[in-house]
């Protein structure tokens, strides 16, 4: 029986789970494949967080500070390469800069997160690998975190910017049939940030549906339209081509019922979430079921959002599917609690067990 919880992945989910385990007096081993903690928000240089526009960097600093605890053993540039055993008694192999080591843990939290959809794969022709001025949400975040927003081709600020929603999501032809949940909010947030930086720029969002759950409606969507004059046009874009040194996009303005062709300086693709390579690899190593999209399956949902198909192994954050930051933080706490019960011998073996 081990008294340690293994947390795989040092992004927001993993950091919060490890911190929670340590706070409750138990030990956590935290693995991260990169050389720094922070996960995707750090790797993709997230600027402001949806919807309150708080600083992503401040949030990450807070999370990192949370694991500076003697109870948390951090392994950077380390990956999980093998696992055997069962709840209460897993033997795991960790492969890091100084070679492979084994450890004995009682429970595991998978927090390996997501990767952004690669727009070169989609069936719409958006030219991400042809035109520098076609960018993705994370490309925009990178610029915004440096308090600038320019056309990559010229270095000059754009006169107009368009967002295209649902790139790589909600698409039967690609197999990513699900909605990535956060892109409507994130695009609107970025639109606000761009309007703040460039008050003369016109910003458009081309959408199929606006997914503004709960308070995102009044905290992001209404201000975007009412205070920042972001133009929402219902109709999705079929292709992007170059014309007159700018980008020509073709869509339909469905509410007006007519095809439209507009020249834009910058077009931002709202790329969705897919399981990260880490999620796919680790799920395979741990033997947890994945759903048809490759995310870690949570068979006990909705009552149990963190239990996997293997007792003693839990999941937090986007490794389980598209999640926003609130979901991730909630899941991390819940996963930590379930992991603690597992190592304290209080967990029942069944999945999705009633509390």
């Amino acid at each position, binding site marked *: 029986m081990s008294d340690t919880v293994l947390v795989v992945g040092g992004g927001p989910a993993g950091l919060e789970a490890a911190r929670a385990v340590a706070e409750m007096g138990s030990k956590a081993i935290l693995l991260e494949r990169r050389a720094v903690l922070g996960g995707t928000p750090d790797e993709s240089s997230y600027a402001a967080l949806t919807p309150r526009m708080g600083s992503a960097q401040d949030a990450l600093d807070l999370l990192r500070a949370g694991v500076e605890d003697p109870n948390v053993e951090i392994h950077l540039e380390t990956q999980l390469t093998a696992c055997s055993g069962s709840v209460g008694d897993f033997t795991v192999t960790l492969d890091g800069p100084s070679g492979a080591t084994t450890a004995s843990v009682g429970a595991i939290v998978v927090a390996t997160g997501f990767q952004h959809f690669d727009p070169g794969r989609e*069936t*719409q022709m958006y030219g991400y690998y042809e035109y520098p001025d076609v960018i993705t949400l994370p490309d925009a975040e990178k610029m915004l975190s440096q308090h600038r927003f320019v056309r990559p081709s010229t270095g000059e600020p754009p006169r107009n910017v368009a967002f295209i929603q*649902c790139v790589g999501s*909600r*698409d*039967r*032809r*690609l197999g990513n049939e699900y909605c990535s949940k956060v892109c409507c909010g994130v695009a609107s947030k970025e639109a606000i940030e761009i309007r703040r930086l460039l008050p003369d720029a016109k910003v458009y969002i081309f959408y*199929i*549906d606006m997914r503004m759950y709960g308070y995102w409606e009044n905290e992001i969507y209404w201000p975007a339209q009412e205070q920042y004059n972001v133009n929402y046009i*219902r*109709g*999705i*874009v*079929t*292709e992007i081509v170059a014309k007159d040194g700018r980008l020509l996009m*073709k*869509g*339909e*303005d*469905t509410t007006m*019922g007519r*095809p*439209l062709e507009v020249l834009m300086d910058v077009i931002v693709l709202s790329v969705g979430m897919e399981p990260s390579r880490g999620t796919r690899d680790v799920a395979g190593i741990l033997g947890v079921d994945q759903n048809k999209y490759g995310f870690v399956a949570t068979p006990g949902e909705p009552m149990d959002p963190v239990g996997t198909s293997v007792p003693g192994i839990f999941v937090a954050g986007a490794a389980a599917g598209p999640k926003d930051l609130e979901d991730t933080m909630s899941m991390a706490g819940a996963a930590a609690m379930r992991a603690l019960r597992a190592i304290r011998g209080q967990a029942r073996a069944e999945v999705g067990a009633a509390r």
Partner: protein
Amino acid sequence: MTLEARYADVPLETKQALFDEVKADRRFKDYLYGCYECGICVAACPSARFYDFSPRKIAQAASREDLPMFFEQLNDDIWNCSQCFSCTRCPRGNNPGGLITIMREVSINNGLTSAKQALEGYGRVVYKIMSTGTQVSPDMLQPNAFPDWGPHVQEISDNLALWRRALPPDTMHTTSTAWEVDDKTLTELYLIWHMTGVLDMIKGVDSGLHMILNDVMEELLEEAGYSAG
């Protein structure tokens, strides 16, 4: 813009029956899933730029089973589609162009006037494909058939027989067919038209054409030892 679809005088049962026929086609479930009404099909569609035509509305009407709208489209819109299938960009996997193909077949099978009108002037092409196994032939290059192609067509027409002999591939020394088709091959094609009910379709659309085709096919089929039908 009127709020009511046209053809209000046609009974709803008629429209329902036609819609049911479209829906019963084997391909329907592969051509229509749900519809986001996102408009990507319209954005890609060439006909949408020139006609008051919308593949999105075709998909929407079919999804909603909006019979008056469907019937109006069946009569007024489906023949504007250029069948290019640019609309297969659809993220739901719908195929509005394909829906239209089914709607056209249903329209013909039910002898709709709009179908007959759409096929007026097209009879000689149907005759060519069904009877010779090639869709267009060199001898169709006549100025009265393609007046807007200019005097060049006259030049071709004047020199046709000679120019066709000046072609190296030896299957192409033909003028009334695109290439030389074996009689046995033609027999097989005629059998396909008979066995799949296509000849019956033609009967409903153009009985004169049907008669001519039947005569042409009968001869060859009898020679080959099949009874037509």
